[in-house]
């Protein structure tokens, strides 16, 4: 094998990787140390000031930034358990042989291919407090998109509606991979359906569950389109997510350096969270 061969195989990807993954990680750090307005010729070096602003309690940047972090936190905290448990239930419903199974599976998965913009527009309309169909149907005047906690109920409910099918399909594949003989053995031991679920199904699904939990946490923490389009941060920017705030800071207020600093702070949180999930499941796996 020629010495160059592996590098020639790697070259196209490494080119992309260096330009859009490796370089930006370092370049973003560099930007975060500047008062970086992308449309001003001067981008003065200001050291850690962008970070210091975020950790000075009561400062103009820290307040809204941590409010936005809290918003993302609330959303993640409530949406992840629902998106881990409900899709498993749906997968169990679908995990049997009957006519039309593929149709139901397709119906539950369909919203995912519509994309966040269409889904948000439809829900903004359905949930409109004054002319929306839901309030009319229920005979209520619930402020679904304009007051708390309703705006959270709406954002979480809509996200569950949108992505439930995605997770359910992954669970379903996991269920179908479970060795039938494990159930037979459990049945011989006199285990009922519930015990079979608890002692066979759940443990066998562990790797799939780890995947679903991790992917869902990261997706939830990336909350942007739903609140950008449906609640537009209402009420009072309290559903404005961390990503939405970072994008505003960078592209609306033209502080790309400060936005980069905020990205790093958010990223630290997310990486700590992923590590936590990883060790949690590894410990449970070893026990």
């Amino acid at each position, binding site marked *: 094998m020629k010495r160059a061969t592996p590098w020639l195989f790697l070259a196209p990807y490494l080119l992309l990787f260096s330009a859009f993954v490796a370089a930006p990680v370092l370049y973003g750090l560099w930007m975060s140390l500047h008062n970086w307005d992308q449309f001003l*010729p001067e981008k003065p070096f200001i050291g850690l000031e962008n970070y210091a602003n975020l950790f000075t309690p009561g400062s103009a940047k820290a307040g809204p930034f941590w409010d936005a972090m809290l918003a993302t936190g609330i959303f993640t905290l409530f949406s992840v358990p629902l998106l881990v448990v409900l899709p498993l239930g749906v997968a169990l419903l679908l995990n049997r042989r009957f006519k039309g199974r593929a149709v139901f599976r397709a119906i539950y998965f369909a919203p995912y291919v519509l994309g966040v913009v269409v889904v948000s527009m439809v829900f903004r309309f359905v949930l409109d407090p*004054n002319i929306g169909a839901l309030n009319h149907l229920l005979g209520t005047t619930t*402020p679904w998109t*304009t*007051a708390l906690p309703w705006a959270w109920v709406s954002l979480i409910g809509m996200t569950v509606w949108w992505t439930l099918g995605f997770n359910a399909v992954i669970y379903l594949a996991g269920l179908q991979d479970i060795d039938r003989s494990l159930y037979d053995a459990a049945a011989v031991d006199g285990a009922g359906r519930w015990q079979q679920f608890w002692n066979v199904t759940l443990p066998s699904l562990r790797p799939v569950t780890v995947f679903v939990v991790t992917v869902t946490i990261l997706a939830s923490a990336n909350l942007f389109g739903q609140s950008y389009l449906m609640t537009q941060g209402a*009420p*009072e*920017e309290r559903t404005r997510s961390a990503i939405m705030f970072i994008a505003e800071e960078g*592209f609306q207020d033209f502080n790309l350096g400060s936005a980069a600093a905020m990205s790093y702070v958010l990223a630290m949180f997310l990486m700590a969270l992923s590590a936590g999930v990883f060790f949690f499941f590894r410990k449970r796996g070893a026990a």
Partner: protein
Amino acid sequence: MRETRREFLAAAAGAALVLAGCGGSSRSDGAQVTLDFWNGFTGGDGPQMLALVQAVEKEHPEIRVRMVTARWEDFYTKLPAAVASGEGPDVALMHVDQIPTNAAHRTIMPLDDLVRDLDLQEDDFAAPVWRAGAVDGRRYGVPLDMHPIGLYANQQVLSEAGLDPESLPTTRDEYESALEELKGKGVQGHWVTPFFFTGGHQFMSLLWQFGGDLTDPEATRATWNSDAGVEALEWMRSLIAKGYSPRNVGQDADSIAFKNGQNAFIWNGAWAIGDYGSTEGLEWTLAPLPKIGSVAAAWSNSHNFTVMRQPTPDPQRLEAVKVLIDGVTRSPAWAEAGQIPARRSARESEAFRKLEAQSALARQVPDLRFAAAAPGLSDVRESTLDIAVAQAINGSRPVREALDDSARRANELLALNREKYGT
């Protein structure tokens, strides 16, 4: 109040272009120029602007215009990026308070030469608007219009409640008693929203009415947390407390309710004239805002023509831009979209006077207030005052506390902006 819109538009645009033909230099050497023209008219005003542009095209066959609209908030994030990357338009309309930011970013270019060529003077315009289009002594904007908010009334709802649909309330007492009357008939007359459209505009108008101001004249310090600001917000809250408005009104829901006859009054911008005018079965009228505070005042903004910096300026395109700006600002036809023309000749034209609603708004011209401008100021307002107004209206925070806190944060951000923009 449904004029024959099309006919009027055609006549007015035609008249303007005869004038434009005299003033503007239309050298037609056969070479076609296609201009990109951006604005934020995503509502009913979009087709109106397009008609004006097409009128200019008809008069000047060598000029073609591609008009592009985006929501204003998206427009202001896209425009500097597009210009910086060489994908920007030739000419754009923007709000006068955005001019300092865009001038600082070198997105737009000074128009002193263009204004001299067209012989435009302060005298030809409403003075406060004309002055707002300059930064550090250089002119960046040519004002097209003024768009204040005014008092819209649903005449059918008023009649059914036993109120005179022809004489609208002009004072605080009259306004409140009308609302009380409506409440007695089961109508929540004035819906208060926590959003900038329309809650934010109402607050600023009331702030000025109670004798306050948004900032000091140099726009270095926020002053909206004055007693006047507190009074203004307290009054808005009182409409909810007294049951004249529901709680938690959604974005644009007040305007939809107005069209559906669910409320009677809405303090909305001039831009709504087109929308309400084309709503079938809606009988409405428009008047200056009632005087709730101690002085008459109404918030207003203005669309200004601005010209984008290009990597290599093209004299032929600039010439075409000049023709477009002159033609559109001269025409009273833009008033059809609900706007008050900034150019005096258009405002004093016979065609404009025929427009009842617009003329009613124009009676407010001496009382109109424009926010002081500085680079980044409108973004600061958005991330501070707008939130405070929403908090107070939703009742999630006491009025004074919300205003004080937002003013403190605004002052900090204004200081950061001064450092950044070197102003």
